[in-house]
């Protein structure tokens, strides 16, 4: 279904190929949050990965910053129809963090400070597809945008890039996280417009 809207000609006619369907170029940085922005002190920050055997791998801020850091230049797509092109980030690849993690499970629940969760397939996190990012545009990541550190999974809608991330818990089956329980898609591919279900 789609029909021409009477009287509408549109403004942005040179449509950018890098924009997935239904997205508009944003000049500011859109914010999608269900509640207030938490303030997290890096002195208390900790990130962990927990597996089915009860094994927990964890890093404090200092240990985390000692890991190999990558620069990431990427486009990001928010489910509220905004995209930003060519954003630059610094962070630690999930490949690095998963190096010593043994798991048979294929799904992950990302948990954030503040209690929010979002589910992902492990496949969407490995092989150079995801990072824990702590810098945006050369500056420490603002709390409003998920600082001190957020998940960065740029090939999925941005709510999957859990802000204020504090850990990943391996899951045997895919289960909806907070956003997904509230109507967002389980997977969230912007090129397929997997916004809602």
């Amino acid at each position, binding site marked *: 279904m789609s029909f021409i809207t009477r009287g509408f000609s549109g403004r942005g006619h040179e449509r950018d190929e890098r924009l997935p369907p239904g997205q508009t170029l944003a000049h500011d940085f859109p914010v999608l949050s269900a509640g207030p922005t938490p303030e997290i002190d890096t002195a208390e920050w900790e990130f962990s990965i927990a597996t089915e055997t009860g094994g927990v791998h964890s890093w404090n801020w200092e240990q985390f910053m000692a890991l190999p850091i990558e620069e990431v230049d990427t486009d990001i797509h928010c489910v509220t129809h905004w995209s930003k092109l060519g954003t630059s980030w610094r962070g630690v690849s999930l490949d690095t963090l998963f190096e010593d993690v043994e798991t048979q499970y294929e799904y992950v629940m990302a948990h954030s400070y503040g209690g929010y969760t979002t589910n992902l397939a492990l496949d969407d996190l490995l092989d150079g597809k995801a990072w824990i990012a702590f810098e945006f545009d050369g500056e420490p990541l603002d709390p409003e945008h998920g600082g001190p550190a957020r998940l960065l999974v740029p090939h999925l809608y941005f709510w999957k890039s859990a802000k204020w991330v504090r850990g990943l818990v391996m899951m045997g089956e895919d289960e909806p996280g*907070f956003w997904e*329980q509230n109507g967002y898609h389980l997977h969230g591919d912007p090129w397929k417009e997997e916004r809602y279900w």
Partner: protein
Amino acid sequence: MSDASTATATSATSEPAPALAAMPRAGWHVATVVATRQETAKAARLELDVDGWPGNAAGQHLDLRLTAPDGYTVTRSYSIASSGPGTRVVLAVDKLPDGEVSPFLVDEVRVGDRLEVHGPLGAFFVWRPVDRGAVRAAGDGAGGAASALRARPVQLIAGGSGIVPLFAMATAHAEARDLTPFRMLYSVRTPDDLFFAEELMALAAASDVFRLDLVYTRRTPDGWPNLAGRVTRAALAAAVLPATERPIVYVCGSTGFVERVASWLIELGHDARDIRTERFGGI
């Protein structure tokens, strides 16, 4: 998933996550404009009849898609000012002078036009009347369950067009004759910028449990007791239900407004889990 992680998965919500199964399914619909009116000097109210609309809860929104003759499309989200069953949906759109979609909706759209909408969307920024039957049933049984079900007071905080979903909540509250204390703080630039002015005044006048507090940021009505100016932390502390009453707080407006208000609420002792926000964009 382990029990520990299940507990954190739901801890962002103070109530259990609303069962999606109970929510109407979102889908694409054709909406016909059945009425338009000027809402403020810059804003319009659009009443739509949406083919196949499953009804919506107070606070939900929809996505609206416009298509140009050359196939170019653009989509924006709009909160719904109405709620309940039926296919009538009311929107109120504020015109951003440089915007692509809002000037079209405010200045160009007329009765009889058809628009594509997707919804209803969002299951978290939602308010539902207390199910009095359930409270009574629980009351007959275990006393603990009754108090758990007793609704907590509600504080609504709107900036500008952020009033739209909160107006839906205030109206749903009045229509259900719900006795949950409701208080609304509404910040607008001038008296001419009030959305739903008559309806809000009428709601406040008719109800003992709904209270409206207005803040004017640029110009006040004549004889207004306060000076024009942005909501400050002190003004917020004075006008909102105190944290000790454990209100559920809904905050809606531009991203900057919501960020400021929500961070002050935390400083004033409100639990982050009791604050629900909808950010419309902008700064």
